[in-house]
Structure formats: C-alpha cells, structure tokens
C-alpha cells in the first residue's frame, strides 16, 4: 500500500506540474485529492488494514501524501494566477492619451469673471455686496446725487430714457451710483459696500465703448471717515487686486456727488499709469438725500468700469468682441 501511496503522489505531482492554467488545475483538483482520487480511494481502504500500528502508520503517510499534493496544488494555483494576471495585463494595454476627452465645461462671461474677482477682493477687505435696479428714476440716478433738474453736470452722461407717464422721469441708469442712495436708505450705517452692475449710455459702440457695460461702485459711510481713508482703501484694493508691486494715486477731479473729488490712477511696476476710475468724499447733499446727517456721518465712494478690467486682463483689442456671444471666443477663458 505504501508503494501505491507514493505512486499516486508521484502521478498527482506530475499532473499538477503539467496543468497549464488555473482553470485546468481547478478541474484536476477533485481527481487528485477528492474521495474518488487514487489517494482518496486508498484512504477508504485503510479500514481493511488489520494491524493497528500498521494502519496508523499508513494513515499518517496517506495524510502526509494528501498535504503534499494540496500544497503542490496551492503553489501551482498561485503561480498560474500570477502568470495569468501578468498575461492579461500584458495583453490589454491601452493608449490613455486616446481616451482623454476634451472638457465640456462651459465658461462664465468675462464680465462675470471680473465681477466675481472684484467682489472677492472687496469681501476680503470687509465689504458687503449690494445691488439695485437697472432702470432707475430720475431721482436716484441724478437728483439724489446732487444733480437737480437742469443741472449742467447731467450732460456728463448721455442718458437713455425709457417711456413713462411723466416724460424724462425714468432712465436706464448711467452709473451704479444710484445704488449708493438705495443702500443709504435701506441699510443702517456703518456701511461698507460695493455695488457691481450693468449701466447704460447713449454711446455708439466702438472698440472701447459699448452702450451697455458694467461698473463697480464702492461706498463707505461711518463716523469720522476721512479722505485719508479713501486713499488708503484705494491703495489696499490696488495691492490686493493687481498685486503688491502696484501703487495708486489720487488727483483732483470733479463729480457732482463727491467733494473733494478725485480720479484714481494705478501705477504699474514699470512706472506707467493706468487711469482707473473716479472717487471722492460723499457730498453732504448726497448723504442728506440718503437720509443721513452729514454732521454725524461721513464717507467716501469710488467707481470704475469692469469691462475694461476684463479687456486689459485678456488683451482684448475690441470690447465689442466680448458681446458677440460667439462660443469660439467665450470658450477661450477658463
């Protein structure tokens, strides 16, 4: 019987060694270690060995033989599986660069991008963001801004009028400044707000002008706000938005709704100046129109064009390009 065992083991090991795949090996397994396998059959004959010691010894070598065969199967299985995975991987290589599809993500408009960047900078500087209607009454667009009817400064803006029961009383806002008055009326000071939005002028479109464009306005009203605070805030904005190497300057100008009034310029690192916008201390009459006592509150306001910022940033030659809604243009800017 011992001979039978060792013959069965040899045969089994030979079969295992000859198996060509893990599936072939799985198919063999029952025939090598199952009940019907040569070793299994020998095990079932074990009871017929009469001598106890002999039976015990043969039983032990049978078990050892089965363990040997099982271990051989396990080793062979691991080898086969490893080889098979290797083969699979070797066979199924792909060109990833062929699988990368272009992004289908859309783009926000350049004006929206610029507005959001500006808002973020001002929020960081402690400002809130206010909004107002685009079609305005004469009161908010002019009168409350220290430009009573027939004030000559009204001609500084070419105004578009909207049909109304009282002719001339409804306009497309020529600037975002009317939102200043609305904020003063609706919020309680201290006010630290920026007001981005769409504005309208009766300008024939050209490379640098559109009849519909965008501005951002800033308004600060608090106790003891001074001209120095205006200059300092403009400087802080300049550095935060354009970069630490930029500086700003104010020079005297005229707006009916601020006094003292100024233009503010930004100085690039190379020493050249960019005219950015207008600003000044809120005129006492404007504070009054907003329902505030100019003896108690003081403040400053500033404003500049958003479209121009986008135009400069992306080196756009003709501002009209931004409004063609041509996807080939819009998709350039992520």
């Amino acid at each position, binding site marked *: 019987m011992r001979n039978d065992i060792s013959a069965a083991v040899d045969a089994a090991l030979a079969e295992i060694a000859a198996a060509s795949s893990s599936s072939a090996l799985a198919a063999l397994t029952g025939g090598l270690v199952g009940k019907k396998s040569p070793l299994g059959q020998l095990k079932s004959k074990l009871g017929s060995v009469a001598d106890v010691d002999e039976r015990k010894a043969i039983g032990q070598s049978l078990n050892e033989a089965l363990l040997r065969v099982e271990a051989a199967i396990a080793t062979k299985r691991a080898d086969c599986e490893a080889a098979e995975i290797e083969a699979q991987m070797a066979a199924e290589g792909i060109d990833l660069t062929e699988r990368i599809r272009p992004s289908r993500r859309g*783009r926000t408009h350049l004006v929206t991008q610029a507005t959001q960047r500006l808002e973020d900078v001002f929020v960081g*500087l402690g400002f809130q963001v206010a909004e107002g209607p*685009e079609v305005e009454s004469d009161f908010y667009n002019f009168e409350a801004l220290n430009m009573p009817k027939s004030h000559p400064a009204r001609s500084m803006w070419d105004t578009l009028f*909207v049909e109304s029961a009282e002719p001339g009383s409804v306009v497309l806002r020529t600037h975002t400044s009317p939102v200043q008055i609305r904020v003063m009326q609706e919020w309680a000071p201290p006010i630290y707000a920026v007001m981005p939005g769409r504005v309208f002028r009766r300008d024939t479109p050209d490379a640098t002008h559109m009849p519909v464009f965008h501005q951002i306005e800033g308004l600060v009203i608090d106790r003891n706000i001074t001209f120095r605070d205006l200059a300092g805030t403009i400087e802080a904005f300049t550095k935060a938005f354009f970069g630490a190497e930029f500086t700003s300057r104010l020079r005297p100008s005229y707006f009916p709704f601020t006094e003292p009034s100024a233009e503010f310029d930004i100085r690039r690192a190379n020493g050249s100046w960019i005219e950015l916008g207008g600003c000044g201390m809120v005129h006492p009459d404007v504070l009054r129109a907003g329902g505030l006592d100019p003896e108690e509150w003081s403040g400053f306001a500033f404003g500049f064009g958003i479209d121009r910022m986008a135009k400069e940033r992306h080196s756009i030659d003709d501002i009209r390009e931004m409004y063609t809604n041509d996807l080939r243009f819009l998709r350039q800017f992520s």
Partner: protein
Amino acid sequence: MKVLLSWLNEFADFGDDVDKLAEEMTALGMPVEETITAGTKVPGVVVAQVLRTERHPDAEKVHRVYLTTDGSNELHVWCGAFNMKAGDKIPLATLGTKMPDGREILRRGILGIDSEGMCCSAKELELNDDHGGILILPPGLSLGADVFEALGVTTDTIFDLDLTRNRPDCWGHMGVARDLAARLRRSFGADVSGESSHPEHILPVEIVDDESCGRFTATVVKNIRVTQSPQWLQDRIARSGMRPINNIVDASNYVMLERNQPTHAYDLRSVESGFRVRFAKSGETIVTLDGATRELHSTDIVIANGSDVPVGLGGVMGGLDSEVVESTTAIALEVAWFPADAVLQSAARHGLRSEASARFERGADAWGLESAAWRFIEILRLTCPDLEVHGSPQATLNATCPPQSSPVLVRLSQVARILGVPLSAGQVADLIEPIGFRCSGEGSEVSVAIPSWRPDSSTEIDIIEEIARHYGYESLGKSVPNSTVHGRLSLVQQRRRLVHSILTEGGWSEAMPNPFLDPAASQLAGVDDSAQLALVNPLVAEESVLRVSLRPGLLRAVAYNQSHRVDDVHLYEVGHVYPRGSGTLPDEEEILCVMSVDEANGELVALRSWSLLVDALGFGAQIDTKSTPGGYHPGRSATLRRGKQVIGAMGEISPVVLKRHGIVGRVSCLELSLSVVLREEPKAVAARPVSRFPSSDIDLAFVAPDSVAAADLHRAVKSAAGNLAVSLELFDVYRGKGVTEGSRSLAYRLRLQAPDRTLTDDEVAGIRQKCIAAAEKTGAKLR
C-alpha cells in the same frame, strides 16, 4: 483747453521745465493730455515767388510751378495744389529739407521731369491746421529768406488740458496760471487798468429784463484801423485752437483766451443810439455773424441798439449788421455777464455753441468786465497806437448780478474731519489766499470770501476741496478705516454663484446679449410683448425696446453660432427683464435662461439643468405640461408654477420660432425666475440615520397614455408607497411594439426599507398593491 507756456509765463515765472509743469497741473486737477511743441523751425524752407504755372497733358492731379528764390534762376516743382498764381510768394522746401512729418525732400520725378523742391501748406510746416492749399505769404517778404525768420514765427509749448466743468476760471490762461503759481509758490500778477484820455462818449445802456443780464459795460474806442495782428499774437490764437481774423476780432479772442471773458466789438455806427438788453420778442429775427437768419425765442437774450433793433444774440454771437468791417474806425466794446442757464438754452436751441457761449454756460466772472475791457484796449493798441478811449467802461447792473465776493464759514474741525489732517487758520489761509480766497478769523472758524471768478464754489465743502487741492492730495496720506462690518456675499449672491457653477460644470457657457431689442424681436420669438417698454431716444431702431424675456437674445446667439459653424451650442444667461409695471419703474426681474441645440438622440439637453438646479438650490415647482408657454413646442413644453404664480418654463422651442431665426435642428430651453428662487433659503435638513436593515426593490412597469404626465404618475406611486419608500426611479421609457399607440410604458424601481426591521414579504406585497391602485387612478395600467 489748449494752454501755452509763453502765455502762462506772463503771469508768473514758471520757467521752462515742461514735464514738471505738466505734472503739477495734473496734480491740481488739470490733467495734461498732451504736450506739443509748436513753431519748430524747419531749416531749408525759403520764400519763393511763383513765375508761372503750367498744366501737363498727362498729369491730371498735379501741375507744374516755376519759381524763383533769387529773382533770376528758375526752379521747377510739381504741385498738387492750385491756389497760387504768378507773383504770389509761397514757402518752398528746398532739396534736402527734413519736413516735420519726417519726409525728406528729394529730387523726385513725375513723367520723367524732376521736381526741385516742394511747395508747402501751413499745416505741412505745422504753422496752423490750414491744409486748404499752399500758404500764400505776405508780398513784402524778401526772396530766399528763411520763411520762419521772415514771418517772425515764435516757438511755444502747448499743454492740452482736460478740464473739469467745475473750473470755469481755467478756461483762460490767467486762471491756470493763478492755480499753478499758488502751488509753486510763485508771485502772480494779472492786474490791468487804464484810463480814458479823451472826451467821454457814453452810450446809454438799459437792462430791460433783469434775468437776461446781470452786468453790462460798453466802452467807445475811436481812431482805429482794421488790420492784421502781429504774428506772435496770431500764433498764440492759432495755437489755442482759434483762427486769427483781424486785429479787432483777435483782440477780443485774445482777451477771452486769457481771462475767460468773452467781449464783443460793434461798429459804433450801428449802436450809436446805445444798448438795450432784454429777452427776444416773439417773431423777432436776427442775422448772426455766420450769416444765418435766426428766429428768436422769448428766452433768447437779445442785445438791441437804442432803437430796439437786435444787434446781437447775447452771450452767443453778434449780429452781422453791426459787425466790424474794413471801413470801421470806431467801435463800441461790450463786456457783459450773462446767466449760464439762459445762454446754455439759447446756444442749444440755435445749435450754436460758440467759444463765448461755452464760457458763459460754465460761469464767467461778473466782476472781471472792466479789466477785460482795458486788456482789450491794451491789445488793440499794439496795432492802433493812436486809438482813443472815450470814457472808462461803466457797469450797468441789477440784482441778478452775483456778488463780488461771498463769505462762507469754514470750521477747522470740519476740515480735519473730512481730510483727516488738522490744519490751523493760518495754514488754511496760506493754502487758499494765493488763489483769491480771502480768509479772516483766528479761532476754530475761518470766514472765507470766495472770489467772483469761482462761481462753482459756494459752500464749506467746496472750500475744503480747495484746501485739499492746494495741500496736495498725495500729501494728505493714507489710512485704512477700522471697520466693524464683516465682508460677505448675501444669500442671493451666493446662490447666484452656485447657478453659474452648476451651469458651467454642465457644459453651458454664459452669453450676454443686448438687453435692447428690435420692436419685433419678442414676437418673432413667440414672447408676449404686451408689457414691452420702448426707449425714448434709442441709438438705432433695432435696439429700441427693453426686453421682457431673455429668449430672443439667446435665440439670436444660437443662430449666430450656428451660422459660424459652431454646432455644439449650449448657452445660458443670467440677466434682467424689464416689463412695464404698475408703478413708475418697470417690474424688473432677474431671469435665468438656458438654451441648448439638442442632439439627434431626442434628449432635451437644457432640461438636464433643471434637476441640477433643483438639487443644488433646493426649491421646487409644478411642471405643468398642460399649458404651453408662448414660443414653445405645444407637445414638448411645460410651464413651471407655484400654484398660480408662474416662475418659468421649459421644453423645446417651437419649430416655427426656430425657422424664423434660421436655426436648424431642435433647441431646448429652460427659463426660471431667479428673483423668486434665489431668495429662498433652504432649511437645514435634520439628519436621518441610514437603516441597517435590508431593503427590498419592486419593479413596476405601467402603460400610461401620453396625456398622463410621468411626473404625476411618479408622485402618485411615491405617495402610495408611504414612508417606507427610500427611492423611486424611472428607469425605462418605451414606446412601440406591444404598447398601444398614444401610450408608453414607464418602468419604475421602488426601493423600500424600514429603519428598525426587515420588511416581510406580506408588507412588500401590500405596498406593491397600493402603488398599482394609485397608478391606475391616474389612468395608467400595470403592464
């Protein structure tokens, strides 16, 4: 406003550091847009005399000019201007001359015949802007002489200032010089006076209507001769942007350019009877200096003579009949102050904005009349040394004349409060007295007398601005306010940003079409235009109404892209619409419109945005498939509502509308009122623990007629499933074989799960039956 350095230097010693002066003027609020050097001599340009001119049969645009520069030798030049005749003296740029524009004059031939120089226009020599022909020189100049030397041309620096409308005083050299001298601490002098040395000849002056004129002077000057002004004076006038005419007109313009004070000289013969200043009578007309007959209006200011015949349109332009002519030997000089509003209206009505009217409109100095008159006489005396002044200028005035100076109290505390820099009374006086603001008072308040040439200045804050300007904006320094406010975006703004990111992530790009439309554009897009408002003064008819929907604009953008071979069009816009409202202002509303050109697979791509938006913003609406929004496909659209309130629409754009816009294929669209949905703050959701017990799925396929909306069926099944339903998903829609025509099969997967136990088969079966019953109530049948 063009300002000349030589002229400024007459009022104070500013030197010649042009860049520094430009910088200082900019710092004072008079930004220098351009600095131009004028009268630069061009060596090689000499006085030549035309001998004869000749046409060449083969040259149409040029002719041959024979010249001499020495009286004997003949030179030949081709010339494209034909305004010279034999005997005329003209400037000739000789061979080798470098012209101001960089050209070099070379021996260049036409038709094989050489040109030995170039005849020059005044513009080519940068003498003035005249390019109407070759400059004809005065006959007395000697041949061969340097033209610039012979003419006595002066060189100068022109500063082109961009002046703000609050500084009328700077519309004259004197005002600019005063401001600049104060800043640079130079002594400034502008006094001028004179005396009458001849028998008084006083013209009677009556201001009939007080509101027409506040102050008026008339001065009689005799023994004059109409001639040319000296070259340097002509140069100054030309370089300031006006045209030299004759010594009388030039003197008037010179005084205006210097002192911002218009004056007008009448031929004495037409105003011997005196002056009556009044508003025009109805039906009255006048022929102005430009030759136009003008019908006058009752608010036009009329200068009439003693016989009440109009001789001038006050503050705007003189009359032709009283004009100074060659035979004039005596004049009456009017120097007056007219109210800004009246002149503005008059000039606008007649479309006649003159240099004079522009100055009165901004505000002139009512108390500078006499010195302007004397300055006029001083200038005129340069060409008429024997002129006689018959009586000093005498002013007639009334209550509408502004005061000579008006005192305003300035609190030093207020100066510090606005500027952030404490200043003493003495410092304030040092800053603004040099520009004519007289200060008195030593304590905490300064009384400031505002000079009459600063009509823009009338209140404390105006004076604080002057203090700041002369202290120097840069010197005031910078600080940052200590804010107690926290910077943030509002809820609406944060949610709007979310809308932008959802849509761009989803593949849509943001468009910004014009909010002004053609009046027919709304109807073309199927949009109800009954609330559409028109612009009163549109630029063009195609942009003359305010939009009431974003759809027309996006449809145009889709068509534009398609016509430029962009097929994959997915656009959105966030913008306002402006329908007529019940109040003064329109019912302005913020709208989102999403538009996609759909692919052939039948998907309405724009509708993808609906679930994304609902999911992200946490709002809901009924999808009412029964009512078709205007301009949409009737069988493929829905109105979005909250009960009666319509908050949007979605579906496929009507093929009729697409055809009108030249759009090919199918286009889907979603419109939503952001004014409604952005304002709603979703409540914070209370967490529900995820059940640890097994879930059971039921698949249910129904056949539902097309009239039953999938959304209604969904709602019915979901509600029947009760609170054990974890999810209900429509996973298949099938039309075709096996399903009745006009119906479709809708297959749902319902997942049930209890938080606290494993569901029994009976429970699941019971829910299934309830769902089927509820579905059948809507008109669907289990398949």
